[in-house]
């Protein structure tokens, strides 16, 4: 028994060991990797991805999956930029309303997603994939394919102002992660996510309204996608349909690589932080080492397969679809 316990404990820390190993490896190949400037660069590329991955973590904890993030981010980013510019173009004026506005849009899209999944009893991966396509179409319809520029210096300070070497964006993302941690560990809803993911039959039998809980999970995810959209816009100063591109693959990879199991019930937002850092360290490290960036998708693909393989408890599975 003690043997197994230590194995389980060990497995829990594997993602962190992988992260440390990667940092050491890239530093050994190119010492420039281990510098504050480079770490700040990794932090900037990680911030939007961290928000999106944190959002989807809640959904995956319940054993569902959400593939709608590209569409949701595109819609949130575009509408956020339009609202900001329409309300005076600066966060110092009425423009700050654009932030709660964007979060609300994210929540609404998440709710639609969750309701379709729960009420129509459609598997979540398919419901959310369809809605993702709808979202991309919607944002294209709104923008007509144009880019929306944001020049507000206060908003851009998320990227330009640095505290302790890291941009404000990274600190803001960290704050949001702490909120997510609070939701996960210290609220009833958060604990219930684990209950549903661990065994829906049991959760339902003990009186949980699992349908409503699932919808809540998708709403929380939607709000975090909206945060990710805001950071993504802040990073480039541009909002367009392309803003959402690639987030689906990267965020799912991050969650899975961080050690949250796709079957639900184990893992959490700190795993996701480690996962996001692993993915971004690999992305950054490959550039620093001098490998072309298009190998990233392939490497991430292999990483996902390996991580899901290692994290699946095969004793509890009879067959896999």
């Amino acid at each position: 028994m003690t043997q197994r316990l230590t194995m389980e404990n060990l497995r829990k820390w594997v993602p962190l060991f992988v992260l440390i190993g990667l940092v050491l490896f890239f530093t050994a190949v190119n010492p420039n990797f281990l510098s504050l400037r480079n770490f700040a660069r990794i932090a900037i590329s990680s911030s939007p991805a961290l928000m999106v991955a944190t959002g989807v973590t809640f959904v995956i904890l319940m054993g569902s999956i959400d593939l709608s993030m590209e569409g949701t981010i595109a819609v949130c980013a575009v509408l956020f930029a339009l609202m900001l510019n329409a309300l005076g173009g600066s966060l110092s004026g009425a423009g700050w309303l654009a932030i709660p506005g964007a979060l609300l849009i994210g929540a609404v899209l998440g709710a639609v997603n969750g309701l379709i999944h729960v009420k129509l009893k459609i598997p979540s991966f398919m419901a959310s994939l369809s809605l993702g396509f709808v979202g991309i179409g919607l944002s294209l319809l709104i923008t007509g394919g144009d880019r929306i520029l944001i020049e507000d210096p206060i908003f851009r300070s998320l990227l330009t102002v640095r505290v302790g070497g890291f941009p404000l964006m990274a600190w803001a993302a960290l704050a949001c992660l702490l909120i997510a941690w609070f939701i996960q560990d210290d609220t009833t809803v958060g604990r219930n996510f684990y209950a549903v993911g661990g065994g829906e039959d049991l959760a339902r039998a003990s009186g949980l309204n699992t349908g409503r809980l699932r919808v809540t999970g998708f709403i929380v995810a939607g709000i975090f996608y909206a945060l990710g959209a805001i950071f993504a816009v802040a990073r480039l100063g541009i909002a367009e349909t392309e803003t959402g591109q690639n987030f689906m693959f990267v965020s799912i990879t991050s969650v899975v690589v961080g050690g949250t199991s796709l079957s639900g019930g184990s893992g959490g937002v700190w795993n996701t932080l480690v996962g996001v850092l692993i993915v971004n360290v690999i992305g950054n490290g490959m550039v620093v080492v001098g490998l072309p960036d298009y190998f990233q998708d392939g490497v991430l693909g292999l990483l996902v397969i390996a991580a899901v393989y290692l994290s699946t408890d095969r004793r509890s599975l009879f067959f896999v679809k």
Partner: protein
Amino acid sequence: MVGVTDIKFLSPENLLNLATDVVPLLIMAVGMTLVIYIGSIDLSSQSVANMATVLATVTLPVAGAASALVVMAAGLLFGAVSGIVTTRLKVPSFIATLAVGGIALSVAQYVSGQQALHMDAGQRNHAFGWMQGSTAGIPHELVLALVIVGVAWFIQNRMTAGRVLKAIGTGEPVAVASGIRVERYKILAFALSGMFAAIAGLMFSVKLSGGSPTLAEGFLLPAIVAVLVGGTPLTGGVGGVMNTLIGTMIVAVVRASMLYLNIPATGQQIFFGLVLIVAIATTIDRSKMRIVK
């Protein structure tokens, strides 16, 4: 309905054009059908088709018409990898195919050097010119597509493999208990889906005379819609290749009528996304899913 607003819509040439335009989509959807038929899904088709356009363009000067074989083999290989990852490593098919799609995308970008490539017109006509011609007014492409659908139909209805796929889709535990080597046949379904996606990419790249890692972008949604609207539910077991043929026709007509009615392409994507949800909701077999995750 659209025939009423514009009488030209129903003319034979227009219908023929419509059918020809939809050929690559049809082939991809037919491959996807085999995977959905067993209750799994293949999200890598689009990336495999993208890779196929690049591989076809790159190998054409070297291999001539044999480049078709190279492309098909590559598709078969990527499909088989998806199948092996799903069955042996027990990774759910949507995530396994997503990951394999990522690998295919990397390969496409590596081989193409991240740019759009063009086929040499002379070489293309020499190797694949016959694809573009037509006999008695019927384009060869369309004939080829129907032959391919016929092959898929034959596999599905007249071969042991097809019967086994149906058994797996209807009830996998039962199939396992009857002593069928389920894993092998599942891998076969994924491999065939990969190969069909590659053929779709090949024909698309011949048509456009070039290849790029993003050429087949936008194929995934209509392909899934075609399968589901045709009547093969996400839970598998019923429907099949012929249903997908009809489903693809529906997609083609909807698409063309939207063009006629001047609805922008972005509207199409929203529409197909919603159609997909409706199609799944109405066709899915809920008795197979006690808990919907």
